[in-house]
C-alpha cells in the first residue's frame, strides 16, 4: 500500500489520533470531555506500546491510566460539579502567548532532534523484552529494591491523600 508496511500505516494512524485527541484535551471547554479525550489519547499510546511489542506495559498502561487515574479525575470533577459555565477562562492574549511559546519550544526541540539520523541503531527485529516473563525477571532481580520502595511510596501517598482529604484533622 503506497510503499508502506502495515505497521507503518498503523503507526501513522495511531500518531494522528493521539495528537488530535491530545489537542482536544487542551481545547475542549467541558472538563468531562477533556477527561474522555485523555482516555482516548491513552488508548492510542497503548496501541503504540503494542506496536513496539511492549505488551506488559500496554496492559498496565490501560489498567492504571484509563482504569484508575482517569476514573479518579472523573470522580473529582463530578464531586465539584464542574461544567462549561463555571469554567475559568484565561484572557485571549495569554492564550496566544502560550501558543507562541509552545510553538517556539517545538521548533527548538525539532531543530535539535533533526540531526539524530546518524544515531547508532541496533536492529532488534521482533523484540521479546516487553513480554511479561522477561520484564518480571528483571523487575524482581535487578530492580527488587526500587520495587519495594515504590510500594512504600504508594502507601505513603495513600495515607497522605486520606490525611489531606479529611475534613478536620485532630
Amino acid at each position, binding site marked *: 500500500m503506497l510503499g508502506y508496511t502495515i505497521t507503518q500505516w498503523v503507526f501513522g494512524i495511531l500518531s494522528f489520533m493521539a495528537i488530535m485527541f491530545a489537542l482536544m484535551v487542551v481545547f475542549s471547554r467541558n472538563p468531562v470531555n477533556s477527561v474522555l479525550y485523555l482516555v482516548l489519547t491513552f488508548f492510542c499510546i497503548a496501541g503504540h506500546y503494542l506496536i513496539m511489542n511492549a505488551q506488559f506495559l500496554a496492559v498496565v498502561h490501560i489498567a492504571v491510566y484509563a482504569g484508575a487515574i482517569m476514573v*479518579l*479525575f472523573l470522580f473529582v470533577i463530578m464531586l465539584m460539579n464542574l461544567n462549561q459555565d463555571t469554567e475559568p477562562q484565561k484572557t485571549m492574549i495569554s492564550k496566544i502567548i502560550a501558543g507562541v511559546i509552545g510553538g517556539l519550544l517545538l521548533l527548538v526541540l525539532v531543530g535539535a*532532534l533533526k540531526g539524530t539520523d546518524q544515531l547508532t541503531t541496533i*536492529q532488534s527485529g521482533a523484540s521479546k*523484552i516487553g513480554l511479561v516473563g522477561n520484564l518480571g525477571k528483571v523487575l524482581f532481580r535487578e530492580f527488587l529494591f526500587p520495587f519495594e520502595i515504590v510500594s512504600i511510596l504508594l502507601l505513603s501517598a495513600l495515607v497522605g491523600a486520606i490525611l489531606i482529604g479529611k475534613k478536620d484533622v485532630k
Partner: protein
Amino acid sequence: MINGISINMYLLLSTVLFIIGAIGVMARRNTIILFMCIELMLNAVNLLLVAFSTLHNDTAGQVFVFFIMAVAAAEVAVGLAILSMIYRNLKSIDSDLLSELKN
C-alpha cells in the same frame, strides 16, 4: 528502526505530545485540566522511553516506565486530594486564585 518505523518518528511524536501538554499547562486555568496536561507530558516521555528501550533491546527503559506509572499514580492521588481541599475552602479551582497562598 523499530519494525520499520524510524526512531525519529517516535522522537517527533513524543515531542509534539509533550508540547501540547506544555501549552495546556500555560493556556488553561482549570487546575484539573492542568493536572491532565501534566499526565500527557509524562506519557510522552514514557512513550519515548519504551521506544528507546525497544531500539536498544534493553529492559531497563520499560522497568523505568513501570516505576514512572507508579509515581504518577501516587502524584495524582495526593494532588487530587489537595485540589478537593482547595475547592472546599475557595469554592473554585481557578489556578489564579492559588496566588492567595503567597500571604
